[in-house]
C-alpha cells in the first residue's frame, strides 16, 4: 500500500480525533470564561474552595474505586467459566451479557428498582421470611447506586478478560500441574498473570463507566446520592452556568487521565512477559 493510500485511510480517524480534541478545547476555554468576555480562574477557585462540590468529585472516585474491584471479583469467574465451559454454556452466558449490554440504562435501572425497591423482590422475601418487619432501604442511598455500578458494567469486565483467557495456552497450565502445582497455584501463578492485559482493560473500562455514571445515581440515588456527572448536567442545563460545569468537567477529565495513566503504567509493568 502506498504512503498516500495509507494516509487517506487514516484521515477519518484524524477527523474524529480532531472533533474530540476541539470539543475538549472548547470546554476548557468555556471553563475560563468570565463576565463581559474576560478570562478568569474563578470557576476553578469556586470548585476547589467549596467542599460541597469537591464532595461530589470525591464520592464519584470513591464509589468507582471500590465498585471496580467488586466487578472484577464477580466478573473474572464468569469469564473463566465462559472460557472453559461447553459451547452451550458459553453461548448462554454471552447472550445474557449481550442482552444486558444492549438494554437501555433506564430500563436496567427500573429493573433494579423491582429488585431493590421497597416493594422489590429482596424486601418482599425478607418480609415474608420474617427477617425484617420494615422494608430495608436498599435504594436512594449509596448502597443502591453501588449495586448498580457493580452489576451494570459487568460486560465491560467480562469480555476483555474472556478474550485473553480463551487464548491462554492450555499446555502452560498442564505443565504447571504436571510439576505438582495444585489448581489454585496454577491459577494464581500461571493463568491470572497471563490474563492481566484483559484485567487491566476491564478495570479501566469499568472504572471510567462508574466514575462518569449519570442515569444510575439519578434514578437509584433518588436525589440523595448524585454523582459528579449529575452535578455537571444540573449546572449546565438547569442552572445554566456552563463555565462552572466546564470547570468541573475539566477537573474530572484531568483526574481521570491521571488515573488512566497510572493504571496503564501499572498494567504495562505487570502484564508484559518478563524479558530474558
Amino acid at each position, binding site marked *: 500500500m502506498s504512503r498516500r493510500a495509507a494516509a487517506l485511510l487514516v484521515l477519518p480517524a484524524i477527523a474524529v480525533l480532531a472533533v474530540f480534541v476541539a470539543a475538549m478545547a472548547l470546554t476548557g476555554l468555556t471553563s475560563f470564561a468570565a463576565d463581559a468576555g474576560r478570562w478568569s480562574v474563578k470557576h476553578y477557585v469556586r470548585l476547589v474552595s467549596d467542599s*460541597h462540590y469537591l464532595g461530589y468529585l470525591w464520592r464519584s472516585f470513591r464509589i468507582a474505586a471500590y465498585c471496580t474491584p467488586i466487578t472484577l471479583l464477580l466478573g473474572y469467574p464468569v469469564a473463566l467459566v465462559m472460557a472453559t465451559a461447553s459451547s452451550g454454556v458459553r453461548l448462554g452466558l454471552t447472550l445474557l451479557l449481550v442482552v444486558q449490554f444492549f438494554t437501555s440504562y433506564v430500563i436496567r435501572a*427500573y429493573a433494579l*428498582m*423491582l429488585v431493590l*425497591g*421497597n*416493594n422489590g423482590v429482596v424486601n418482599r422475601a425478607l418480609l415474608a421470611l420474617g427477617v425484617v418487619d420494615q422494608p430495608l432501604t436498599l*435504594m*436512594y*442511598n449509596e448502597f443502591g447506586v453501588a449495586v448498580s455500578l457493580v452489576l451494570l458494567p459487568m460486560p465491560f469486565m467480562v469480555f476483555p478478560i474472556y478474550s485473553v483467557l480463551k487464548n491462554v495456552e492450555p499446555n502452560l497450565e498442564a505443565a504447571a500441574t504436571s510439576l505438582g502445582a495444585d489448581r489454585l497455584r496454577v491459577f494464581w501463578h500461571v493463568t491470572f498473570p497471563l490474563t492481566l492485559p484483559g484485567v487491566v482493560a476491564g478495570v479501566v473500562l469499568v472504572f471510567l463507566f462508574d466514575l462518569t455514571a449519570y442515569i444510575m445515581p*439519578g*434514578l437509584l440515588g*433518588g*436525589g*440523595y446520592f*448524585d454523582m459528579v456527572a449529575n452535578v455537571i448536567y*444540573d449546572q*449546565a*442545563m*438547569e*442552572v*445554566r*452556568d456552563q463555565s462552572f460545569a466546564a470547570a468541573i468537567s475539566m477537573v474530572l477529565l484531568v483526574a481521570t487521565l491521571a488515573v488512566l495513566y497510572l493504571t496503564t503504567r501499572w498494567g504495562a509493568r505487570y502484564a508484559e512477559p518478563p524479558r530474558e
Partner: protein
Amino acid sequence: MSNACRRVMFVVLAMVLTLALGLAPRPAAAQTEIVLMTWGGAFHDAFQAVKADIEKAADVKLTFVTQTGAAGGLSRLEAQKANPQVDLWTSIVSTADAGLKSGVVEPLPVAQIPNLKSVPDYLVTPAGTAIWSSLRGIFYRADKVPFEIKTWEDLWDARLKGLVSTSFILDKGNFLIMASLISGGSERDIDKGFERVKALKPNLALFYKTDSESIKFLQAGEAGVAGWGILPNVYKLLGPGSQYRFVVPAKPQFMAPIPISLVKGRPNRAAALRVIDAILAPAVQEKLVENLGSVPANRTAKAPAKIRDFVPPLDNVYKVDWGYVNTHFAEWESRWNREIQTR
C-alpha cells in the same frame, strides 16, 4: 443476440422509460416544512392528534422533534444558534425568557397572529404566547395514602412519613416557592420556603428531576405522593376506578402557561407564524387540551369536562416572578442540595 436486435431493444426500453417518466405523478410543489420542538410522551401525542388540522390551516408540513426538557431544548437552540434547525419551540415561561435573553428566540410579532386577540394579555410575552396552561398540584396513590389529600399543607402530615417525593429542578424551584407561600413568604422571601421544606424531610422518600420520573416512582410504589405534579402527564391515568388522584389545592394555585416561541434566524418565519395562529384556533385548542387535561389559552375555547371534576375555580392562581427566580436560581439550587437533598 445480433447488434440490430440490441439496438431495437434499447430503443424500446428508452421509449418505455420516457413514457413511464411522463406518466408518473408529478410531485406537488414542496410544502414549507416547519419544525416544532416539544416534549415527548403525552405532549407529542397531543400535537400528533392535531397535526393534520394545523397543516391544513397553515399550509405547511409540520415535523416534531423531541426535547427531554425545556432546559435541554434551550441548550440545543443555543448550540444551533449559527444555523438553527427548529422553527418553533414549546417550553416554560422562565426558560422561554432565558431564550429571548440569549438571542435564540425573537420577540413575538403579535400583530401578525390574528388569533392572539382571543388570548388574555397576561399569557402573551415577547418570548412567546401561551398555547395552553397546565395545572400543577399533588399527584398521589389512594392505595398508599391513608387519607384524602386536599391542601399543600397535607404533605406535612405525619401519616405521610417516607411517602412523599418532590422536585426542586422541575418547574424551576416552584415547589420551594409554594412552600414559602404557605409559610407567609414568596419567591422574594425564600428562607421561609427552605425552613418549611426542611420540616418536610421526615416525609420525603426521594427526589425526581423530570415529570416522567415522578410518575415512574409512583407506579413502582417507591413513593405514594408526588408533591409537585404536572396534570397533563398523569391526566390519562385518572378516572373512575383508578388508584391515582390529582389534587389542585385551592390556595395557592399554580398554573404554568406553556409558551410557544419563534426561533430566530429561520427562513420560513411567515409559515411559522401561521402555525402559531393555527394552534391558537378554538377547534385545535379544544382538541389539544382534551388530550392534555389543560386549560386552553384561547378564551373562546372550552376546557375539557373531565378536569372540571377535580379542578376548583381557578381564582387563586399565583403569578411567579420568573425574572427574579432566574437571577436567584443558582444560589437556591446550591442551598437546596446542601440543606434539603441530604439525609
